[in-house]
Structure formats: C-alpha cells, structure tokens
C-alpha cells in the first residue's frame, strides 16, 4: 500500500488495519507525532489528511491510501518555519512540547479555513488538543499572532 507523507511516497508494509499513528511512528520512524491516549481524546497524535486535522490513533492506514498526509516533520517548508511554529516559539507556547506537534497541526488546519479568528473560535478549534503545561493562554496568543502575521 502507498501513502504520501510530507510530499513523499512510501510503500507501507504494515497491514491495512494498523493505525496511521503506528505506521508513522514505528514503520516510518516519524516520531514527531505523539501518542498520548490512543482513544482520540488528547489530540497529541493529530496529523493532517488532505489538509484536515485528524487523530491518527483513530485512523487505519487502509483509509488513507493515496491521501496527502502532513506530519509535524512536514510543517516547515524548505527549511523555513511555518509562521505558527515561529509564533509558538516567540510567545512561549511550548513547554514540555509533547502536545505541541498536534496543536500546531490543528491550528494550521484551522487557520487555513479561518484566517480571521476570534479568541473564542481559537479556543473551540483546539478544544480537542489537551495541554497540561501552558494553561492554553500562550498557545491561544501564538495562534492569534500567527494569524496576524499570515494576513500581513
């Protein structure tokens, strides 16, 4: 089976009933995607499938054949950080960093569809991503600041 991850095509040996998360972490060794709960309730394993944020622990590899998958390793382009990555660093939105990849990808998918978000919309958008370190304050500010930057 073939899947496309971060623009690169991979031939996957795992069976179709393997989760996307396990394939990413254990077969492709893309360990930036994290496993926090395996029940789809923490968001640490969020990746983009055709631009939409999904919990990769709930997706079977057979469901994403031929689809474009973006993981945290593919968020920066040509060595240049995505504005969200830069904003998360500058605003102090990163502490332990375990939830960070998932939150960043959720935020990317969200800002792509809503470039003018309010604070409340941002909070709704990331409600499926648990963070235990930051209290969300600086994450929300970072997303706001990345949105400002992207609008120019």
């Amino acid at each position, binding site marked *: 089976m073939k899947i496309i991850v971060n623009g690169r095509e991979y031939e996957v040996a795992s069976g179709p009933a393997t989760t996307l998360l396990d394939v990413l972490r254990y077969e492709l060794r893309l360990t930036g995607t994290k496993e926090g709960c395996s*029940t789809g309730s923490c968001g640490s394993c969020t990746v983009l499938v055709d631009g939409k944020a999904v919990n990769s622990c709930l997706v079977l590899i057979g469901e994403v054949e031929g689809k474009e998958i973006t993981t945290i390793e593919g*968020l920066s382009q040509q060595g240049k950080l995505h504005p969200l990555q830069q904003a998360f660093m500058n605003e102090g939105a990163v502490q*332990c960093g375990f939830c*960070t990849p998932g939150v960043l990808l959720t935020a990317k998918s969200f800002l792509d569809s809503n470039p003018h978000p309010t*604070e409340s919309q941002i909070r709704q958008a990331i*409600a499926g*991503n648990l963070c*235990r370190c930051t209290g969300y304050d*600086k994450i929300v500010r970072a997303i706001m600041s990345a949105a400002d930057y992207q609008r120019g």
Partner: protein
Amino acid sequence: MAKYSVVGKRLPRIDALSKVTGAAIYSGDVTLPDMLYGKICRSPYSHALIRRLDVSKARALEGVKAVITADDVPGYKNRSPLLLVEMAHLAQEKVTYESQPVAVVAATSPEIAEKAVGLIKVEYEELPPVLDVLEAMKPETPPIYPNLYTNFIARPPTDKDSKPSNIAYHMVVNRGDLETGFREADLILENTFRTQPVHHGYLEPFAAVAKAEANGRVTVWTQSQGAFSARGMIAEFLGLPPTRVNLVPVEIGGAFGGKSFLPLAPLCALLAMKTKHPVRMEMSREEVLRDGRPAPGSVSTIKIGVTKKGYITAVSATFIYDAGGFPEMSHTMFVRGNTFSQYKIPNIKVEALDVLTNKIPVTYYRAPSTPQSHFAIESQMDLVARALGMDPLQFRIQNTAVEGDITPSGETLPKVGFKETLERMAEYLNQKGSLKGKNRGRGLACGFWHGAAGSWGAYVNVNIDGSITLVIGVTDVSGSRTSVAQIVAEEFGVPMESVSVVVGDTDTAPWASPSVGSQTIYSLSHAVYRACQDAKDQLLRLASPRLGVPTSEIFFANGHATAKTNPTKSIPLTALARSSLGFRGEGPVVGRGSIAALPPAPSVAVHAVDVEVDKETGKVKILSYAVAQDVGLAINPLSIEGQIQGAVTQGIGWALMEGYVFDDRGKVQNTTFLDYRMPTATDVPMIDTMLVEVSSTTGIYGLRHVGEPPIVGTLAALANAIHSATGVRLKTLPMTPEAILKGIQEQGKQ
C-alpha cells in the same frame, strides 16, 4: 539602564525549535536494533493474597524471552520493597491495590508479550479492601502490611508495645498554648474539607528503553525528573552499585512531580539484563491512570479562633492523606513547612497523617500535600473573614507573618513578599472594580510553598570559537535550560546564541538533585554561577597580561574581555580560549561550580478569580483569573508566566472536574481522558499574571522557587468565588455542576 542584559528578558526556550519541528526525542521515540517489548501482568484485585503464580505457559510461548516475578528481583533480597520507593513494586505474596504488577514479560513483539501476559496463571484469595482513610486508621482495622508500624516502615519500632498500623506516618507540631489561644478568641470556627485523588495528567505516558552492555553495565533511556536519583533506584532494584547504570536523558513530556516515579525503567533494565537484548516498555493511558501514582485525596479539619478585631489567636488542624496501597511517599513531611507559615498564629497545633488504603498508591504532584491543605486553610480563612464581616484580603494582610517570625514548625521565617503580593492584588482589584452581575462572585486565596533544595554541579567550557557550553545533569521540566543559559550569557557578556546547554547522561554530567520542590533553577543557578566565575577567573588571568591591566580592571561584554579604564583595550573570548591552549595558557578553560543544599526561599502567590454560576445547571464559568506571585527575580518572565498559567489550569481541573472514581472494591473506574476530564482551552480564560519581585537573600540575583506555588491557592480561590456567587459553601472537591446544584437545592430548602 537595566541592571542585567540577558537575565530578566522574555526569551523563547532554547529547546523550543526541536519541539515545534518534531525533532525532540522523548523516551517512547528511542528505538534500538533487535529490541524486545515488555508488558506487565497486573492484579485484577485491590487486596488479595497470591496463592499461586505460574508463569510456565507464558515462558513456553514462542517469542517470549523472559518472564520475571518478585522472586527474580535482586534488590528485594537486600531490602524490603516497602523501602524501595518511587518505583514499580512487583507483588510478593499479596497485592495491595488493583493493577499492581505481578509479573513482567519480554517478547519479540508487543502482541506476543500481550499474549504471554494472558497465559500467566495467578490464583488469588481476595481480601476485603479498606478504602476509607478514617476506617483504615481505626485500631481494629486489620493492617494491610504486617511489618509496617507508624513512622517505622519495614523495620522494628523503638517501642516494643507498638502494633502494625495503616498509619504510615504521623507528624505533630505544637507552638504556644492552644487552650489559652482558644480562650482568647471571640469566634471559633471548625470545618472539615475533603479532596479527591487527582492525576498529574502529563500528556506523555511512561516509557523506557534499556540495553545491557557487554561489560555488565546497563544503559537506560527514560523520562525522569532526576537522572541521578533514577540511576540509584534502578541500581538498587538490580542489586548493583549506582554507577553500573547509565541513565541517558531524553525530553520529558510533562512531569509535575509524577515522573520521579519509575514504573517501568527498573523492570525494563532487569529484562534487558536477563535477555541480553534491548527492551522497550510503554504504558498505555489506561495503565498510567491505573498505576501512574496520582496525588492523594485528603481529609482536613481546621479549627480557627479569632478576636472580634480579626486577629488569629489559635489554630488546631489535622491533615489526613490517603496514601493508597503502598507507603510510597510521605505527604505529612511537607505539611510541617507549608501550613500556616504565612500567618501570625501565636498558638497552634498541626497534625498530619499518611494512611494506607487499598487504592492506587500516590506520589508527589506540584507542591505535594499543599493544594489539599490550602484548600482547607484558605477556605477556612474566607469563612472566618465572612463571619467577622471583614474583607478577605484585609483579613489576610492583617494576619500576615513577617520576616523573623517563627513558623509552626519552629523555623525562622526569611523575607517573603506576603504583604507585597497581597497589596499588589489589592491594587489590581481596585483598578478592576467590583464584580457586577447576577450569580457572579469573586474568590481570593493565597498559596504558600516552602521549597526544597538539593546538591548540584555544573561545568562550563569556554570554546575556541568564543561560545560557551554548560554541562548539567538535570532533565529540563520547567524551562531550566533556558534560564541557566541566560545566566551564563549574562555572566560572560555573550549573546544567548553563543550559549549551549548540554544535559549529560549520568556517566558524564555532574551530580544533580532531582527537579522537584521548585528547586531546579533556584539551586542549580548557584552551581552555574560559580562555574561561570571559575571560568571567568581563568579568562581574567589570560586577559590581564594581554591587556596590560590587572584582573580587577577587566570586564566581560559583547564577547570580549575589556579594560574598564580604556575600552579600546579589548580581546575577544575566542582569542583567549585559543591562547589558553598554547604555551602561555593554562590549558582549556573549564569552569566548575557546585552547591550543597541551600536554605529555601519560600514563595507566595495570591489568586483572585471571578466566576459566574449557572443556577439551572450548576456549571461554573470562569470570567477572569489573576495571580500575583513573589518570584524574587524573574530570570525569564515569559517562562514564569507559563508556569503560573499552567499551574492555575491544573488547579482549576482539580477544583472543578478532575478526580478518581473507585468502585466498592477499590477499582479505578475512569481510565481514559473521556472520563478523567481535564481542562481544555474552552474551560479556562486568559490568566493574568503579576510577577512581584521581592529579592530572596539566598538566591542568585534574588531568585525564589517558582513552579509549584501557583497551583496551591487555586482550589480555595474557586470555592470562595462559588460561595460569593451562590451563597453555597462547598467543602468537598471536585465542585462539579452536580455538587453545586445539590448545594443550591439544599440551600433552597433551608
């Protein structure tokens, strides 16, 4: 001009780039060739005798390389497991909590390991579990451990008449004369408060990878708050000297006190040594919630006597902590330094107990014992202020202890910004104005944290390109790498980009105490500062002849050593570092710094929260939240704000929604994040922070302990706010919508 150029700046964390790109390596990301997978067989009962344990079928399964039980643990031959704290305890003869490990399997795949666990045959004889601390304390209740005596764990007590007990530890402090104190009071108020066990909720589950080396040593990759303490614990379990174990640091995905506990690493290391293969073990979220040591539940009773004018005359208080099925980590010892130190109380008696039950054992969680004790203390302070008709803030200011006062435990109080933080909050609230609107209320509370201090070392290398490398031995759980890098940049007068911080493994790094008790930056900074001075002394000796001025006439700035009197006389650090290697040098510039336990620099945080309670549903909406904290000096305000906001959010979870649910046999009922509900971004507002800087006399630049204090006051602040909004006083956590609604309904009946 600012006093410092790098210290005090809001700088991004130096580890942030690796974390936003997914490059950072955590325990579960480590993979070695030819690796086996370990899996734990756990008890389905919370209290049972093991009649028979048969692992033969599991051992015979193809792909299984080892099965170990308590009999295989070398460390248990030297010491009672009751004394091997903060690690996995393989059951011997009996299990004392549900999910206690009974055996561990290593196999060539996780699936085979799982299957082998299913083939382990255990015959249990179930015993009645004791689940309530008050019940467990009664002398007639059978002791869970026959060799556990109060304050004497697994060793003979001094008093020959003493009997085994479920009270693991009992602490009493007394000052003044309680009877006189209560006689002088015009008003006496007594209440009992209860909290539930709660989990740290770190997003990263436990994982460990271990590899047996050819020379009989073992290398372990695991998340731990203390690499050196973990090394010691693993070695003790294996029956080896500590230096036969090398602990390699990895990023730690949230800890909050919960990752001093090592549920996997010792087992993993033993499996690796038995099988001669690398072994990986990981815990699922369910296993983390079932066996990942939460914070204890508590029952606290406080009696306060006050005069009409609002001066406290006497306090008697008892704090009981539910230790669960293992006398894991005493919480009573923290009660001593952390309760009532903030207030002037002439007559006081404080008692604290750790009591065993057949529930999940506990460990330390952010300011251990203190959010629970302060839920009671600060709720009670609010109730007393209300009864007196006094402003709760003024009542606290009036009773505030000052430098030189003797605390209940007999310590002389150092300077702490109690008054300064309370006044800063008063000013903030004054500007904000009173809270208007129906069903709305404001709550105030203080949180005190005494702090801990250990022993730390640091090396500094001045490199030939003029950059500086700092080598330390402590995992970064709080932004410590960034803060100490700021100190190095400050001291050498170089930009942050020129400083790198290496957290070495235990074979190479200098000794470091565990990152607990909010001590890391506070204590480590001394070692780092001294290492900087040591290296600078060497640089000064190199620079002096070259600049033609005495060493006392040289300063470091902009990557140069420069003559104070003549700034044109200047030499870059890179030239000095290079010259140190030449004929006229003294050899490489290596600074060394060490510090033994410092006196702590306690901290206080004052909380103010505005809430609105929906009287139809009981749901609490947090309108705004503010914290003023005495941080001594903020090395990195961005980082400290993050600590405060994170701590408050954990406290909000503790107060309003989180909590273990047990069935009548002591089995944990909520083992996923769906039913162990933690705050999401929609449950909390922006959290305002005010960093008050009252210098400590013991910290470099006046630093204080920072990370734990801000959780302490959260629970009572919310209870007090809910009282203001509804008139209902909740004395039991969590204050769920159901609990609040019940309170409102009962109030209606009265």
